[in-house]
């Protein structure tokens, strides 16, 4: 049974490696700066306000550590939300745009970094 200590060591090393990766990922995700976002309120007049401003509907005391209530900054400054900020905002935007596109309606971009995040297109117009 000489292979058992080796296998145990390998399992421990893999666990430590996974833990380090997870910690590194979380740290980098939290430090990652917010990308500029090309979002125009006037284009989204047909969307129910509480779809995005959910804190008004769910009566949550949504405010970041610095008391910020703007959508991106509140998510960015709340550690539990900041880890999934990309996933959550992409889902919010893409699901709606995709639904419109599949219904043959005019729609915003579904997968376009240039259209959504380029500095030229956006001067951080998120409210």
């Amino acid at each position, binding site marked *: 049974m000489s292979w058992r200590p080796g296998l145990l060591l390998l399992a421990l090393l893999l666990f430590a490696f996974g833990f380090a*990766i997870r910690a*590194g*990922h979380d*740290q*980098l*995700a*939290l*430090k*990652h700066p917010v*990308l500029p976002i090309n979002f125009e309120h006037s284009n989204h007049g047909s969307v129910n306000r509480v779809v995005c401003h959910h804190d008004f509907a769910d009566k949550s005391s949504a405010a970041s550590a610095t008391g910020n209530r703007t959508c991106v900054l509140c998510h960015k400054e709340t550690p539990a939300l900041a880890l999934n900020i*990309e*996933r959550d905002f992409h889902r919010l935007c893409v699901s709606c745009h*995709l639904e419109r*596109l*599949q219904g043959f309606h005019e729609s915003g971009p*579904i*997968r*376009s*970094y*240039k259209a959504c*995040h*380029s500095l030229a297109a956006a001067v951080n117009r998120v409210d």
Partner: protein
Amino acid sequence: MFVLTLRIALCLIVPFGAIFLLGAMPGVNLAWDFSNASGFIAGVLFLLLFAYTGRPLAQPRHDGKFFMVLHRDLGLVALAMLVVHVAVMLVDEPLVADQLSLGAPWPMVAGNAATLILLLLVPLSLASVRRRLWSTHRHFRRWHYAASVVILLLTAVHMIGIGYYTGAISKTVFWVALTVLALSARMFQPARPNLGAGGRRRKTARLASYLSIGVLCSGLLLAGIYSLLGSVDLPL
């Protein structure tokens, strides 16, 4: 050889059609769709490499070197398709570089890790290098298989997690089933293929290279046709 070509063609076209064309998602733009279709074909080729492992099969009746060259060259084609996937996307959308860090969403981290492992695995598996690094072929095969399994699992996490083209549950189940099938391919292969009467054709390794070049061209063509279809106003 004809049967092998047909099998490989079907192995490329059936998953591609099932995931990209059935219940198709709207096209994004020419380069983006081409890039993702190329990446998908690279993924299908990873699966295929578990079936064509380099061990001689009963069909086609070619010498052992044919199968080794086929495995090596299909691996190189998979790497080439992966390079196309990444390069076209970075050129078309340079901000995608932002997704190459460890802090990117997990499905992207999985894709990046799979790419890094593959970039290491391919040169280390070349005959001249592996003979220096591993004392026996058996040891090399173990490490090669383990690294390949990790690549396959990370690829599945990447494709299912990103989930634009593979978004539907049925497509996720389909890809998981293909991954499981690839991982269990070893169990279906006999230790020694039943050859029946007659010998094998000798010096056919070059045919495997030609076949792999054909796979590369077909893959690029398939990705190109898909990106064109996705960009026209068909309900795709």
